[in-house]
């Protein structure tokens, strides 16, 4: 393999692929990035065997070939090279070495054979559609905070992505950890109406989100029961899925919550944040005491004291009290883009629904706490 490539181009794609590589792996080849040079392009591939990220960039290839070399080390080297430089890869007489040159710098890197590198997940996947990057970002951003960390309920360790046909065709993502649930919809892309419901695991969600951060085009997705692949801007991400059945989340979304309170989101978050300073116990619970037109947020700690603050709200049902975890309240309220927030409750023991009154396509369910 012999080629030259601009340092900035190489650095950008190395930054994309190297974050997949686990820092502490006992399998040497998994620390490596695969480099394939042919037909004027350099393709970089990195994997942790569950998630593979490949990117193809322009390079002037003098001799086609392929090798693998430690990903983090290569990234560090290229990051420290002077800006605007040209990086050259050259073979050496030793098969397990490759030389990287930039200006007067020469780096000899160890290599492992490409045959030992995990196989590309390149099988054809049955379902294909394209989705705007902004929609995908919305599906991820508003739900990922609710992904469960509990390994016994592994099927909750990801975002459940599935189509909804009735009453209106939508592509929906759902995540829950049993305490809160996030459900976000975007319009259903063409061809996505028959896709299977898939659960995308947390690491894939994180990596995909990072990769699409500054991309604004259409993303080509393909899916099967066992794999998902996204292609955009010469990047190709393929991931295994969680092999489980997502619970019937619809049953925990209450349909008859008639005590509806509407308030200014920013002010509410400030009040909850202030009052919860006193809630020093592990659960950080705060009590919402509702009366027509007024909400009082209070917290009591046996050791530290108590706090309460009132704020005006739109509320005209019966007075009630309900407790919530302050952190969850703040996290949920932070997901809503509009200025107003509506909180629909039933009683102090039933789940409540938080949403933006102007956005019907995102809803958050929060379980109350006993206070």
């Amino acid at each position: 393999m012999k080629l030259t490539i601009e340092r900035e181009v190489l650095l950008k794609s190395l930054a994309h692929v190297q974050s997949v590589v686990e820092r502490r792996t006992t399998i040497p080849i998994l620390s490596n990035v695969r480099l394939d040079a042919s037909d004027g392009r350099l393709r970089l591939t990195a994997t942790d065997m569950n998630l593979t990220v490949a990117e193809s960039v322009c390079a002037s290839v003098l001799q086609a070939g392929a090798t693998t070399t430690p990903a983090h080390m290569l990234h560090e080297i290229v990051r420290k090279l002077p800006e605007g430089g040209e990086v050259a890869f050259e073979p050496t007489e030793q098969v397990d070495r490759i030389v990287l040159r930039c200006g007067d710098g020469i780096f000899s890197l160890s290599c492992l054979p490409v045959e030992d590198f995990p196989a590309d997940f390149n099988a054809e996947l049955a379902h294909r559609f394209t989705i705007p990057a902004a929609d995908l970002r919305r599906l991820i951003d508003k739900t990922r905070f609710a992904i469960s960390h509990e390994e016994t309920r592994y099927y909750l360790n990801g975002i459940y992505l599935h189509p909804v046909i009735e009453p209106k065709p939508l592509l929906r993502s759902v995540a829950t950890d049993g305490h809160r649930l996030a459900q976000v919809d975007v319009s259903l892309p063409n061809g996505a109406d028959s896709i299977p419901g898939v659960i995308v695991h947390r690491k894939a969600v994180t990596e995909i989100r990072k990769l699409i951060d500054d991309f604004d085009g259409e993303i080509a997705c393909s899916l099967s029961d066992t794999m998902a692949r996204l292609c955009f801007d010469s990047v190709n991400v393929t991931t295994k899925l969680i092999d489980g059945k997502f619970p019937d989340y619809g049953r925990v979304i209450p349909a008859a919550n008639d005590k509806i309170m509407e308030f200014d989101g920013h002010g509410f978050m400030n009040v909850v944040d202030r009052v919860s300073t006193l809630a020093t116990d592990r659960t950080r619970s705060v009590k919402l005491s509702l009366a027509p037109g007024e909400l009082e947020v209070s917290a009591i700690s046996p050791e530290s004291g108590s706090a309460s603050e009132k704020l005006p709200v739109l509320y005209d049902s019966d007075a009630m009290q309900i407790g919530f975890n302050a952190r969850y309240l703040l996290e949920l309220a932070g997901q809503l883009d509009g200025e107003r927030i509506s909180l629909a409750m039933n009683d102090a023991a039933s789940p409540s629904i938080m949403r933006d009154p102007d956005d019907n396509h995102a809803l958050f369910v929060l379980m109350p706490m006993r206070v």
Partner: protein
Amino acid sequence: MSDGFSRVAGPPEPRANSELIGHDEAENIFLDSWGKGRLAHAWLITGPAGIGKATLAFRLARRLLEKNAPQGDPRSVYRRVAAGSHADLFTLERPVDSQTGTRRGEITVEVARKVAPFLHLTPAEAGWRVVVIDGAEKMNRNAANAILKIVEEPPANTVILMTCEGRHKVLPTIRSRCQILALRPLDASLMSSWLCRHRPDLDPKQAMALAQISAGSPGNALRLVDAEGLGIYEEMLSLFANLPCLDTAAAHEFADRISSSRGEDSFRMFLELFASWLVRLIRVIATDDHSVTGLSEEDVLVNRLAARREGLDRWLNLWEKAVRLTAQTESFLLDRKQVLLSLFDCLEGDDPMNCNPNRF
């Protein structure tokens, strides 16, 4: 992977070893049940160290994974299994200590807990997912319980292949959920030809002798070659030649040499050889089958001792003592020479006709 075997030069590591000798029957049991669509989800491959348990486990794993391979390229599966980079294979083995660079003594729960997340993801090639647990007896209690949860309720299309030196060394709750594949000791002639191939410097007679004293385990035989076990064995036989009389001076000289500070491997090797020789002797006495090893010197000695018609319990007690002392020498740092002399003393027994006036 058992202690010491990873250092043996010769055949590659089990995961990269494409050659399996002498276990066709076990392999066929597995393949038959797969062919009939009744493949058990968990298998326990048992047998002595070095016999080829892990080699068989990885071989079976490759057979399953080759079925997955979209391009049907067995070579590619072989390379990736050997490199540990097959996305549908998870190997659980004793972790390497990052400070010392050696394998730890047990499979800890931290590494055992990585199996479940592997099985909770879909297969990469839409077929089998295989977990190889190399040295299941090395799992500590917590690790074994973590694996038990998986063996109790395995996901679909999953095969768990465990290797273990004795079926009773794993939790009964795990064992009862596994199909057991017991590997038999290899045939001596098969093994001697294999040994000659891997160690061309051995002459056929030596190879045959090694095949017989290594209890049908190729790994054990190679270790004997590398630690010059055959030489120690021959010395042991010549020292015992006049049993129940033992030349005290020769015994002291032998014990000095074997137990010297530089000869740790020799000492362990001797205790193993001694115990395995006792096993063969006990078998001859118990079964009255005098067609023992074919090693002429050992045959003569064993037959002569068997003909004395001493009680079997004496030899069994001695074997137990040898096994116990082997373990205690390491854990209590016993004086190696005294351990050997104490064993030799027992070997002479309480025979009133004992010709040696200078007992140890």
